[in-house]
């Protein structure tokens, strides 16, 4: 009983962490008024770049392998690669004022395709490649606490450092958005860019920076997926894209608040994996219903979306100018 729930919970946390990164990154982006539907593609790119960083370092270093350098290389390459793709999105939607939905969807086609293509180049004839030492480093548990705290050690202290970093990022993003002046400015742009512009806020700089940093954070979700969740394996048919869409849903579910992403991601993970663990607890699900259970996160998200719009509380709504381009001369 305990072992089943513990296994379910730890799977949930790991699954949720991927979404958490994606969600926080997308929240920062959407708070600036840009709906970035390219997140799934960007997470794929971040995942592949991070994997490549770890994998090639591991091979090049040989015996002089150093965990810290590996982590640094993987994280930095993942973050930068995702950010570069985010930069393409920025250039199109902000500078060229292209439609955000259209650009975002193209980014997803591009990102998913490019990561898989580069993956096949690295793999050659194989169907999988493993960065095993990078995986070991990324999944190192918290040493003392994991062994010595009963129950909680297994539940809370058994994950790689990126899980704790994700929670830290959620808290940090929340503080940034709601407790700093820069965050206030950013939210003002998302609500009404013309007013923010009149107040002297540089819209273009804010949007570029927030979207680039946001996509960089999302990219780390892909990195976590490959190097920890997926045991350091790169396979062509990975689940990053699906998780990316779940992350976009999660942003709505959290009503654009990064703090909610912590428990929201865990709830989504719990629902997504319910079909695997419920049978062990005596609840049998017929084979065909598995898919219906898997649709639950999306159904729940729609409910949240409807209820939020029903209650008309200003602070829970989507940023008012979400999805709309801003052109100063059009006022």
């Amino acid at each position, binding site marked *: 009983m305990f072992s089943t729930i513990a296994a379910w919970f730890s799977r949930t946390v790991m699954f949720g962490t991927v979404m958490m990164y994606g969600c926080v990154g997308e929240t920062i982006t959407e708070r600036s008024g840009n709906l970035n539907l390219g997140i799934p593609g960007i997470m794929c790119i971040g995942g592949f770049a991070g994997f490549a960083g770890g994998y090639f370092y591991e091979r090049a270093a040989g015996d002089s392998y150093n965990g810290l350098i590996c982590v640094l290389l993987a994280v930095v390459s993942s973050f930068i690669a995702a950010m570069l793709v985010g930069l393409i999105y920025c250039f199109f939607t902000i500078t060229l004022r*292209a439609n955000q939905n259209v650009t975002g969807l193209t980014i997803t086609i591009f990102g998913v395709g490019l990561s898989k293509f580069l993956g096949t180049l690295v793999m050659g004839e194989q169907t999988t490649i493993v960065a095993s030492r990078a995986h070991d480093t990324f999944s190192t548990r918290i040493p003392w606490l994991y062994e010595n705290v009963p129950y909680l050690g297994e539940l809370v202290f058994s994950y790689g450092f990126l899980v704790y970093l994700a929670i830290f990022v959620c808290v940090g993003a929340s503080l940034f958005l709601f407790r700093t002046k820069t965050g206030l400015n950013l939210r003002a742009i998302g609500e009404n860019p013309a007013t923010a512009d009149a107040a002297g806020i540089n819209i273009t700089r804010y949007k570029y920076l927030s979207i680039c940093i946001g996509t960089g954070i999302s990219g780390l979700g892909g990195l976590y997926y490959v190097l920890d969740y997926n045991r350091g394996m790169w396979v062509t048919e990975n689940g990053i894209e699906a998780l990316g869409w779940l992350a976009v849903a999660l942003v709505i579910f959290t009503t654009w608040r990064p703090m909610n992403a912590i428990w929201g991601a865990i709830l989504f993970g719990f629902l997504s994996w319910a079909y695997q663990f419920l049978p062990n607890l005596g609840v049998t699900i017929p084979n065909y219903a598995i898919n219906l259970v898997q649709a639950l996160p999306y159904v729940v998200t*729609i409910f949240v979306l409807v209820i939020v719009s029903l209650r008309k509380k200003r602070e829970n709504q989507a940023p008012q100018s979400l999805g709309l381009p801003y052109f100063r001369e059009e006022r």
Partner: protein
Amino acid sequence: MSNSTRIGREPLIRISKKDVAPWWQKAVVRVVALIAALVIDAIFIYLFTKMNPLDVFSTMFKGTFVFDYGTTFFINKLLRTLRDMATLLCIAIALAPAFKMKFWNIGAEGQVLMGGLATACVMQYFGDSLHTPALFMLMLTASIVAGAVWGFLPAFFNAKWKTNETLFTLMMNYIAIDAVACMTNIWRGDKSAMGTINQATQAGWFPNIFNQRFTLNLFIVAALMIIVFVYLRYSKQGYEISVVGESENTAKYAGINVKKVVIRTMIISGAICGICGFMTVAGKDQAISTATAGGYGFTAIIVAWMAKFNTFYMAIISFLIVFLEHGASEIANTYGGLNDYAASVITAVILFCLIGSEFFLNYSIKLRKGSKKEA
């Protein structure tokens, strides 16, 4: 970024809105964008394969036009491109009314799948008991209803409580995908895959015309293209749609019932998507899977948006995209260093260039010191 103003100095580059560009200018900009895309793709191909990009591009043509194996082969190959084009075009046509209303229906993928699922249900359960005309009528009705319901839900909540339609329709896609997965799991039973529906009786299959079952699809889509064009341009309802799209307040003052228009238009949009699902299942695949819509529900968004709600432009653009897609997978099959994923990168680059080219049609760039440069 270019147009950030510092006090006391005129910015180096100023961007301003332009009048509607004449048709030749539109054509020139698009062609330049395509050439730019092909150059970028050529660099991409050369970097990874060291092959001559010109050879690779000439292979691209063979995805649609093959002259080496006789007329039948040529026609079949061409028809196959037209088939995929018809699917893509049909979804884009379905999106046109919604987009013209500035209602971001990005749930076409799900609406198509639901239409397909309804068709498959009818084929499964009534294939043996109904006569052919009745069976087809039931399939068509079921698919229209299923698609329309999937379009109605987000429209209803949007009209009533301003629920964000982009996010709502996006979520509906994944529910539809899971619904299809669920039904195929039931139908396949112990088998590993579901396979073709009514393999023995061929009940509910489109008739064979020109040696292909999907030929009927082409005619249906051509008819839809004309109907929707006329509907948007010359009907009262089409006019209402464009007023609501331009300004909801204007529509209200003019006495247009905005909620009714939103819901009605989305029902139409979803219904056409449903028809697309019907054609895909009955005419093209004779099977259903989560890949029935094949991502075209998303690509069609790009098509519909680039064509600016003109269904004839949509035909041109969807032909172009399918041509490129088939060409890219032809490249992937012919050359060792490239694969299907490279094909999607090549397509994405072309889409990027086309999207970016819009800027030069809508805005003009002016340099400082009075020197004027038209883009």
